[in-house]
């Protein structure tokens, strides 16, 4: 037990140790200062030349968004058709079929928006071609989209008054060549040397010691697993994701994948401090986010180590804790830590099945996704947090009766309206989605879909409700993990979550970029004695309070019907 807890602590410590220099490095890259990776410059120039891009062309915030949305649309169209016709494309050694249109729609969106909700199983639902040329490709570029949009916002925060916010293609390409690709190569090699397959060979077959004939799915998985974590994507090669013993073979790969998924979100916060030259502000943001992590992770670890009360009631020993859905090599503490990290940062890869975790752990996982900015996804984590900051600045301004200001710019009606809209969007989509699915389940249980509504839920009662609530929460947060018992590969879930995925991705990018762009256009007001200090501890507490109040008010009733009710029914 002690070694399990120590494993978690060391893993987190190692993450911080790496995030610090990485943050410094990221800031240097985007400031255009000299770094060790400058040898990539000729390759980047080649990319620009082949693509007809002038990386020096300055864009305003609207042009940034246009470029971003255009290329995302291109990816969606490409991914949709490739998945639909994957059976006719090469690199399909296992002979897997093409996806149905609704599944291809859901999968294409899900990977374009960095969510990776997977309504299929990697072994049978996709081919090596689509795994690599669609899904792994999207792992890289969707993460780079998030980071590039954060850099746009940071540019806007950095300069006093400007409409020139750099070049989107430049930020996007550099994110890949300078950050994601080099790190992915290192991580993929670590994984490959620990037993993760990396070759293009298809399924293998052998006769087991006891005489059973067994098939084993394989494939070039190591690279995809590396970038699925680095880019906070989470879409795994195999159906069981990082619980699969080939996807995550031992404790070394556990630490590697764990560090890989949260190192960039943390590094981006440090990078922010270096980039806009307000280190204290970054520390306060980091402090609030870490406090949020601790509030979620400590109860989860305690709950999982304590084990299941229902199993305890049967008179079974739970020396390690709750083991349903968990792997022996990670144990309940390591799995609990993973389940919270993966939900707060929008990765959504799992090393244990969340559906089988205790009710309180499920509650914490959902809260992590509802807040969606304790570190948060690659780049977009801070964008979500930025919205909370705007609200906190606004409320603080009202309290002292001054026009609210942030980083030397007035925060006026238009910006507040955008922020309020984004804040209200999440509860609306999650709750309306869950209500709709509950309604259909109750009133049209026999609807003629690939999975009938009466067969959707893998568990009865409160837990069944949690399965639906979790699915929409995960879609809106672009997380991608699931209470996977849900029978979600049918037109209802594929389409409804598909639309929530799009809105839950692009509006929270458009909103902050627009606010930052609009504010950067305004006159700069130097800080005076009466200016709200956004880098103070008090303001950190204020932001934390805003996060708690907004989310508690929005979600408490729904959570009370799901995990909270299940908790009380078991105790």
């Amino acid at each position, binding site marked *: 037990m002690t070694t399990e807890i120590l494993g978690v602590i060391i893993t987190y410590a190692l993450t911080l140790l790496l995030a610090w220099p990485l943050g410094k490095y990221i800031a240097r890259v985007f400031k255009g200062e000299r770094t060790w990776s400058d040898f990539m410059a000729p390759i980047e120039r080649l990319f620009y030349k082949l693509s007809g891009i002038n990386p020096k062309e300055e864009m305003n915030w609207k042009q940034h968004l246009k*470029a971003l949305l255009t290329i995302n649309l291109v990816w969606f169209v490409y991914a949709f058709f490739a998945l639909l016709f994957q059976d006719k494309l090469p690199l399909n050694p296992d002979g897997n079929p093409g996806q149905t249109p609704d599944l291809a729609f859901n999968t294409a969106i899900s990977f374009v928006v960095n969510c990776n909700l997977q309504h299929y199983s990697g*072994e049978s639902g996709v081919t090596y071609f689509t795994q690599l040329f669609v899904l792994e*490709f999207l792992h*890289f570029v969707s993460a780079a989209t998030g980071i590039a949009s954060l850099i746009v916002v940071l540019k806007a925060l950095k300069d006093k008054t400007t409409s020139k916010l750099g070049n989107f293609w430049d930020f996007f390409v550099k994110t890949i060549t300078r950050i994601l690709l080099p790190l992915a190569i290192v991580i993929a090699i670590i994984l490959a040397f620990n037993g993760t397959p990396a070759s293009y060979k298809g399924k293998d077959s052998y006769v087991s010691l006891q005489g059973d004939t*067994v098939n084993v799915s394989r494939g070039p998985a190591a690279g995809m697993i590396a970038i699925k974590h680095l880019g906070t994507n989470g879409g795994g090669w195999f*159906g069981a994701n990082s619980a699969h013993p080939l996807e995550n073979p031992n404790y070394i790969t556990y630490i590697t994948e764990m560090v890989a998924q949260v190192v960039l979100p943390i590094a981006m916060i440090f990078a922010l401090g270096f980039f806009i030259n307000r280190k204290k502000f970054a520390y306060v943001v980091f402090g609030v986010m870490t406090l949020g992590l601790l509030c979620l992770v400590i109860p989860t670890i305690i709950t999982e180590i304590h084990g299941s009360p229902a*199993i305890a009631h049967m008179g079974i020993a739970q020396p390690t804790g709750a083991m349903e859905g968990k792997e022996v090599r990670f144990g309940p503490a390591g799995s609990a830590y993973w389940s919270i990290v993966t939900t707060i940062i929008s990765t959504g890869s799992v090393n244990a099945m969340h559906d089988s975790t205790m009710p309180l752990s499920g509650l914490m996982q959902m809260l992590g996704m509802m807040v969606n900015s304790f570190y948060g996804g690659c780049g977009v984590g801070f964008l979500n947090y930025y919205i909370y900051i705007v609200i906190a600045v606004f409320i603080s301004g009202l309290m002292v009766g001054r026009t609210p200001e942030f980083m030397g710019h007035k925060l006026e009606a238009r910006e507040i309206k955008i922020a309020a809209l984004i804040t209200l969007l999440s509860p609306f989509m999650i709750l309306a989605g869950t209500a709709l699915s509950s309604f259909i389940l109750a009133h049209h249980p026999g609807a003629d879909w690939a999975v009938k509504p009466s067969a959707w839920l893998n568990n009865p009662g409160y837990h069944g409700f949690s399965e639906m609530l979790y699915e929409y929460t995960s879609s809106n947060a672009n997380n991608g993990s699931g209470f*996977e018992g849900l029978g979600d590969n049918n037109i209802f879930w594929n389409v409804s979550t598909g639309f929530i995925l799009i809105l839950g991705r692009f509006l929270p990018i458009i909103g902050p970029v627009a606010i930052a762009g609009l504010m950067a256009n305004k006159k700069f007001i130097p800080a005076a004695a009466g200016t709200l200090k956004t880098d103070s501890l008090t303001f950190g507490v204020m932001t934390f309070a805003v996060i708690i109040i907004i989310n508690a008010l929005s979600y408490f009733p729904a959570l009370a019907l799901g995990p909270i009710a299940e908790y009380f029914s078991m105790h």
Partner: protein
Amino acid sequence: MKRYIFPAVRLTLVLIVVLAGLFPLFIAAVAKMAPGKGDGVTVMHKGKVVGYANIGQKFTEDKYCWSRPSAVDYNAAGSAGSNKGPSNPDYLKTVQERIDTFLAHNPGVNKEDIPAELVTASGSGLDPDLSPAAVEIQIPRIAKARGMAPERIKALVKEHTKGPLLGLLGPSKVNVLQLNIALDDMQQ
């Protein structure tokens, strides 16, 4: 929009070649030097491949150390957990049945000594490991089925127990397939 569509398409094509074509090829080439050459690490016994080092197998005979219950019956063509919630009454009934089966095959074992992992399904359905406690509780049965002294098996289990990483990090575990191969070898 029109201004951005051509650069977007062209950049997409360039990146597909690099990220989906060259990157995995490079990793596959490097992995040739890794154990298993990037195909997955296999385990040989008597000149035959009998499994993968990291993938669990089904063991139901009394002479073998049993693996954990599996939602996919250890068919590694797929992978999945049970996804049963902790309060699901059907699930709890299944667990009770597993307890009864275990007690029937392991007379003399106290119910309160059975570690939970032996009656609960793993996350992947392919868990290759057990904790040392979950192996030890099976030793009397294995010894009886094989007509071996329990002490010899105990020593073998100890030999096959992998402690935490660097002695500090993570749980201890025993690879069930490798233990069972060693058991077969020992009896000859």
